[in-house]
């Protein structure tokens, strides 16, 4: 799962080392437009539906938090 998430992120924003980077949303590395694309790709890849309760930024702040969210939604 981690590799798939990293591949998606690197495709959206090349040049950032997402594996270790924290604060992706709080530090504005991912903006709202990129978030929209990220959500679409995560939903298609993992067959999940992300609701508004996960849109507070902290669930997308790092690869680890995205993995936790996907596990919860599965």
């Amino acid at each position, binding site marked *: 799962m981690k590799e798939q998430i990293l591949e998606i992120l690197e495709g959206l924003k090349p040049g950032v080392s997402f594996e270790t980077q924290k604060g992706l949303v709080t530090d504005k590395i991912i*903006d709202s*437009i990129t978030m929209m694309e990220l959500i679409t790709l995560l*939903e298609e890849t993992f067959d999940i539906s992300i609701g*508004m309760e996960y*849109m507070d930024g902290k669930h997308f702040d790092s690869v680890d938090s995205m993995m936790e969210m996907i596990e919860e939604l599965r």
Partner: protein
Amino acid sequence: MTITSLEFAAFVMVVFAVFAICPRKSRWIVLLAGSMLFYMIAGLEFVPFLVATIISIWLSSAAIGRIWERQRADFDQNTYSPAEKKCRRQKDQRKAKAIVILAVCINIGYLILEKALLYRAARANDLSAAARVIVPLGISYYSFSAVGYLLDVYWKRYDYERNVFRFALYAAYFPHITQGPISRYNLLGQELKKELTLDYTRVTQGLQLVLWGVCKKLVIADRAMVFVSEAFAVTDGEGMVYLIALALDVVQIYADFSGYMDIMRGVSELFGVELERNFDHPFRARSVSEFWRRWHMTLGGWFKDYVYYPITISGWHKRISKWSKQCLSPRMAKLLAAGIPIMTTWLLTGIWHGNGVGYVAWGIYYGTLITASVVWSDVLSSLPGRIGIRADCFSYRLFQMLRTGCIFAGGRLLTKGGSFSSTLRIIRQIITNTHVLPLFTGEMMGYGLNGLNWQILIIGICLLAGVELLQVKGEVRGMIARQNLPFRWMLYLAGMLVVLVYGVYGSAYSTEGFAYQNF
């Protein structure tokens, strides 16, 4: 009671004095009482609207909070199959959603009604009808803060506030009610719940911030406004005058709004409460998208979280996106998927800013620019290289910042002129009747500012720019605090003297109300 008035200063001193002598645990009550008093002074007729918002939103959040609590308790104590849990979740979701829709309709509904009535009165040129519409002070700000809190409770981001008076303080807190920031409950609400202490450094630095805000407002913003309002009062003037007025309008709105924010953040710091920032050096932005992440950040954040994201993850938008990926070219699919939420968000942002076609045009202007920058991001980012321009140097970054500033000024032009037809006439004058000579013939002295005032304004703008540049290096108040006492006091006294001598007030001028306070 404007916040640059002696009445406001006296009000803050009284509240602070009572706050200081009260036990720490009761200080939030002093702030609540002070905030309600502030609102009553603004207008007794406004109070029922604020109270109605507080009660309706709090009751709604309590009802929704209890639905989620009962659900959690039930799932913890009893065993259900996944299908039963799903059924229960859907049933509770429907109940909670109905409460949210009702509360949002009541609160945002009045905001929409008020705008519609004012628009109708303006179209009919009916001043008496416009005067009959009650526009509670800060309704756009406190309604948005309150509705944001309710939606966060509905989306289970945090528990509801059990104490209605604590919630009332968050909604009515006087430093943020008039012009924002549009605070989030998990930030300002929690700030107001901590033990409020007095701290000498924080109080003195708060006062410094207040002084800087007053300087920006009275010395720079109100002075620039004199020229701007006289220049745009006519629609068949010289194009160069409009261009200078537009540049000064950008300075005016920034100095006015950020000056207000500095004053209120400084006042709030006296009580140990940190308000969210609303500006992050917007004129350093290198694109329109970046600009709006740095200007009026709390409004942009509100629309992003409560309009843009709900649209993008809604079922119907996902279906449209899926269909467009299957049936349209990749570029057109992206245009549709990105364009719908972006244009909707910006249209609503434009309407929030004002009534009239000009504000709708403003929303379309930014929505179009941002949508285009998203959809054609690959083309735009490769353009400098393809035409032989280096993009990784200071000169290009400077060009980007100036370009963004011009785009912002262009957007401001859409709302000048009083009516859309007047705006179009002004634009025509800029295109067809702009000459360089008026800059050297003294024509700029004919719009309310004499030579001395122009000098003060230019020095003020240079000072503002200098402080902005310093702020990039670090907190300016911290830099001042590290200097020796005589230097620091020389600076404070100079600031007070500048405000007293060069502030725009008195019989010759009228102290303009803050630009964003009638929202």
